[in-house]
Each structure stands twice: as structure tokens, then as C-alpha cells.
């Protein structure tokens, strides 16, 4: 079973990387660039009987390791069953 986890900075938390990317796009000549946020995406192959179990397992992974809950949010997507 494969899950995909999106980890993004919480709104209100400074995202220096997003800010720098936004400025760079503007410098490259793209017009009307607004807010840019940069995050991580982690795909994990894991063993689980079904999608729900996979999602639960991924949730534990996020809480324990993959996301820094102080400043980040995460969203889990199960890719196939």
C-alpha cells in the first residue's frame, strides 16, 4: 500500500522558502504572483490490510516523525488499495 503525505507550513507561520520562490518567480518576469508556500511531499510504501489502516499508520508516522506539528500541517492520501 502506498501513501502520499503532504506537509505544509501552518498558515501564519513564516515560510522563508515560499517567500524566496515567490520573489524569484517575479524576478523571472511572471506577473501577478501572490502567496507562495513550499512544503514537503513524502511517499511511503507500507504494509496495511486496507486503506483505512494505511491512513491510520501514516497518521502515526506524521505525528511521530514526518511533520513538525508546531509549525506544520499534514494531509494523507492513500494512493492505491
Amino acid at each position, binding site marked *: 500500500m502506498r501513501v502520499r503525505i503532504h506537509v505544509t507550513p*501552518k498558515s501564519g*507561520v513564516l515560510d*522563508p522558502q515560499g517567500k524566496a520562490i515567490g520573489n524569484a518567480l517575479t524576478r523571472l518576469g511572471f506577473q501577478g504572483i501572490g502567496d507562495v508556500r513550499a512544503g514537503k511531499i513524502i511517499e511511503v510504501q507500507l504494509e496495511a490490510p486496507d486503506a483505512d489502516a494505511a491512513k491510520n499508520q501514516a497518521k502515526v508516522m506524521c505525528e511521530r516523525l514526518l511533520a513538525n506539528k508546531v509549525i506544520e500541517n499534514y494531509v494523507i492520501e492513500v494512493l492505491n488499495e
Partner: protein
Amino acid sequence: MKHEDTMRPGTLEAAKQFGLNEAEWANILRLLNRTPNMTELGIFSVMWSEHCSYKSSRVHLRTLPTSAPWVIQGPGENAGVIDIGDGDAIVFKMESHNHPSFIEPFQGAATGVGGIMRDVFTMGARPIAMLNALRFGEPEHPKTRHLLAGVVSGIGSYGNCMGVPTVGGEVNFHKAYNGNILVNAMCVGLARADNIWLSAAKGAGNPVVYVGSKTGRDGIHGATMASAEFSEDAEEKRPTVQVGDPFTEKLLLEACLELMATDAIIGIQDMGAAGLTSASCEMAAKGGAGIELWMDKVPQREAGMTAYEMMLSESQERMLMVLKPGREAEAERIFRKWELDFAVIGITTDTKRIVLRHHGEDVCDLPVNVLADEAPVYERPWVEPPRPAPLSDVPAPPSILGVLKQLVASPDLASRRWIWEQYDYSVMADTIQKPGGDAAVVRVHGTGKAVALTTDVTPRYCQADPYLGGMQAIAEAYRNLSAVGAKPLAVTDNLNFGNPQKPEIMGQFALAVRGLGEACRALDFPIVSGNVSLYNETLLPNGQYQNILPTPAIGGVGLLRDWRHMATIAFKAEGEAVILIGETKGHLGQSLYLREILQREDGTPPLVDLGSEKRNGIFVRTLIEAGQVTTAHDCADGGLLVAIAEMAMAGGIGAELAAPVNGDPHAYWFGEDQARYVICVPQSTAHDILAQADAAAVPAARIGTTGGEMIILDETNISIRALKDPHEAWLPDLMRR
């Protein structure tokens, strides 16, 4: 809080939530002769917090010696400044980021580094070195590895990006820090003595300018959090963590230095803890001026921010300046070139009031002196902590070298290479002594001079006897500088203690400060800047409080007039005479031998004889300056044999040692008597050096000869490899687990 709410009158309840007590609230009402609104109350809570007002510590700090002919600026500005000759000045300070680093180790430590760098470059100095003094809980504690890894990578990521070498520091592990780690960062900068910038906002009608990053809602009430003890719900306070942006800070550094090459600035101040509030109040207070701020002009990261939020935000990488009128365009050009926000957000006035205007309304109007000078000062009651019983018998170990092997791989003595290899210690190409020695040495670029830098304190000594521990911290810093051949010049401190409202903790503080002061006076080693971090305690599940060990971390700065005459700890050649400087009594109380080998933390810490410290230090330094000695190391944690082992491991050369004629060998080899150094000299000069020592009334004795690949002690021996492997492996092994 919505805008309307920030305009409502404050209440006692709100004041308490902001960390003020009933008497302080009453005092505010009396001083203002009216009820402050919530915005104003927020500003009071920040300015009167422990962090900004030093209300518990001030009466004690006043007793510290802060002057010397070479001190240009003592405590009171963003950092201390000393004269190192030829028009050069060193600007330095240490600061803590303990609580944020416990909550979010990477960002907490990173923003700590960013904050202390701003303190230094605000004064016109280019940072040239960073150090960090770290304390973690027990190595086995479930949080320790995560915290250590995060803190180290946070420090590295910020300092490395800034291009400032991180050249030294110290790390201890002790269970008293399980729930409250200490992250103290020190920044050292180089400036021209006649181009130091201060923070006073002088004159009326001068533009007040904001530069750097935009203001967001981060860290609101960070300063009050820094002054509140930790409880199990510390995690609830998480959103107050700020994220650092070293890229922006690097631009800010370059832009500020570029502007400082002109004479456009009147006063400049970084926005650190308590952000815009403390920056504006302190600038106004120092300059005897008033400030009017136009909050609509403050660069904002988020929509709909209230004046309250902007004033209390702790967004990083921001500065406040007062410019000479008419110089705005010139300054703006520089900051725009560096792609930074720049805004004129107010004006100085002659009212001596802080006035905030937002959406056409005055949302705050407070007298500066009430915020700054009328802040509470407490003479908190204190008692002398109980003295430890004198040491009972300490059994001899089966094998001295076996103990040595165990000690060099113990948590407080094992190699810190895993840490400092994550720091760029060689950028700027002037680091001539990297981490791993007694003090780091960094050249003053393009000159023959160099500065030596160290951080020191032995918390277990301070716990057993804060007065002696305070003295010892200064003495050890003095020794580490002397051991590389530097003249110790001045000190910054970071006083980390528990809850000052507990008389025993306040007693630790008072006595430690007394010890620091006494040692500084005796050694001509004034304190020119510092920081106090109190309430370092954790509420345990059983309802008890765990206070940290008293930890007055010392950052010492010394000067080498000629860096070609410098000593390092490594044995350099075979067949040299190993000479011990200083007196050995075999003091085992509070030693690492007791703690690591016998699992005992008892006895009194070693005595500190400041006369010997000074005499022996000057003697060793003079030999190094004269080019007679290039190998030296002080004896500290672990005692004489550990010092010798460190010299052997660093040089890859062994030594043959003679045991003492009388006394217990284990006390002789592992006792932690102070004021001692090990030096090495060629056979041909050994006799002369001993004679010089004799003439200077400095105890000195030849104790061995370098050579081979072993440490040989009477009939026993151990190879350097057998010491070095576990010494180097301990920390990487811990972190791999």
C-alpha cells in the same frame, strides 16, 4: 484579540494572564492615574517582564565589575565592546533561547543564533565567530537525542548560511535538564572603535525607520513566555514559536553595515524578544525622546493585524532605526538593493511618550519613563543553599588507566566532533584554532592579532556551592584563554537559573553572582554584557518542581597580540618534557571521577585560589607569548590524566608518566584542583622553564616525557587508539541509536 477588544480597558485578570501580579497592576494604575487599554497593558506586560526588566536580578547584577581601561561599552547596550588596539574593537554578547528550543529545537536554536547576531551587528560590527553553550538531559532520556539533533542542526543552519564560523562551545548532560534544556549562543563581532552604533533615539522630528522582514503574528508574548516556568502544558504554547530566515538576516547584515559606512543613522536597535515594543521604548528611553508610531505603515505579513499584535510580535530579522532627517532616500536605496522591506513608520517627538496611531486613532499613549525606568525591581528574599557534607572516603579503582578509558568516553568528556563538524568553523578563513582545543582562535582579518574565545561553567560545582561555582566558571574561562596564549580581556555571561521566587534558587543566583564578581575583579576580567534566564524549572507529574542546575555560563574573550605565538593542546614532538603547572592536592569532591565511576555526586567543589589562577595564568601566557611554549592545556573536568590523554589523542603521540611519590594515585590523577596547566617543552629548555616558574612563585614539576603510541604509567599502559576510539564513538553512537 479583535481591534475593539484591544481598545477595552485592561483588568487585573488580564494583567495576570499576561504575567503581571496584583501589585504590579496596582502600580500601573497609580503611575498612569488611569486604566490602560489592552494594547497598553500588553506593552506593560512585555516591558515589565523578567526578560526585559531584569526585575529579580538587577540588584545583584549591579555588583558586577564592568569597567577596565579597555572597555569601550559595558552592559546596557545591545552588546559589550572592548578595545583591542589599532582602532579595532570586539563586540560580543551571549544570549539564551532555552524555552523556544525545548518546544521546537531546530527553529528555537536557529532563531537564538539569529537574535544574538543582530545584537552584535546592530552596533556596527561584522560577526566573526559564534559559540554555543548547551545543556541537555540525560543521554538516555527519550527526548534528548531529538533535542540535541534539532538544536545542533538549527545552530548550524543559521550560522552556516550567515557565513560566520561557529568555533566553539560546550555541552553537558544532566538529568536536571531533562525537561528544560539550555541553549546559549554567543556572537563575537569586529568593528572599528570609532564606528560603534548605539540605540538612543535622540532629537525630535527624526524619522523612525523599520527595515528587514515583515511583521507577522509570530511569537506574540514570547518575552512573557521566556519568563514563565514550564509545565506539562508547555506544548500548548507551541504556536508562539518563530521560524528563522537566515537568508534575510544575511541581507540585513550587509545592508546595515553598508548604511553604517555613512553617517545617516542616529540610533539603531534590533527587534528581539518583545519586538517593536521594546525596541521603540528602549530607544526612546535611552535618548530621552518620545516616539510616535504609525502602525498602518508597519510592513505586515498578514491582513488585519491589530496594533497590539504588531507591537508584541516577535517576527525575526527586523531592525528599528532613527535616521537624520532627509537621509531616508539614501537609506532606502541601500535596503531596496538588498531586497529588504523599508518603511518610515514614525517620528521622534519631544513628549517623552510612546504614541501609537492606527486607523486614524491613538491606540496607545504612555510615558516612556513609566515603561522603562519605573519597571519593578525586586530584592527577592534568598537563603544560602545547604552546603554539601565533606567528602567521605573515596575508594581506589582497580586500574587507573581503566578509569581513564571510561572517563574519556563519558558523556561530559567524549569528543564533540559530531557536533562541530556540522558547523562551518572555517568560513571567513581566519579560524586558526578550530573546536577541540581550550579556546578557539580567530584572526583579526589582515592583522597579526587574533582573538581567543571560550565558553565555560561547571554546573555541578555551582549546584554544590554556587559561590565557588561562580568563581570557578570565571577562572576556567581565564585559564582556557591563557592556555592558548591570549590575554583574557572581558566576559559576557548568560545566567541560567530556576525560579527566583524560591528563596533557595534566589540564593543560588545571589551567591553565584557574588562569586563571578569576585573572580572578575581579581583577574581584571570585567563583564561587559550578558543575559539572565530565570524560571528554568519543570513541573513534574508528581507535582514537584525540578529546577535546573544553576548554570552561569561564561563567554570569555582574550587577545593574542601576535597569533604566530600561540599554543594548542596537541603533543607536537616525541621526547618533550611534560610539565605540570599549579598545585595538586587531589580534590575529588564533585569530580567526574566520583560521578562517572562511583555514581556519586557529593562533596564540596574544588577551591578557587584567584591569586594562583592569576599567577599561573600569566606565567603560562608569558611563556607562549615569548615563543617558549607551543603546547599547553588546562586541567579541568576529569583532572590531570584526562588532560594528558586529550593532549595525546590530539597529537597522536603518547607519554610516559611518573606516579606521585606520596598521596593516593587516583586523587592525584583524577582530582580536579584548579589553576593547573600541562605544558610541553623540549628537554633542552625544561630546566630553564622550571627555574622561571620557581622565580615567579609558580608551582611546577616535571611529570613525564612525550613519545610512542601509548600512555605509560608505571608498569601499565594503554594505547592512544584504545582511548581515542571510544572517545570519538560515544556521541555518534548515541545519535545513531
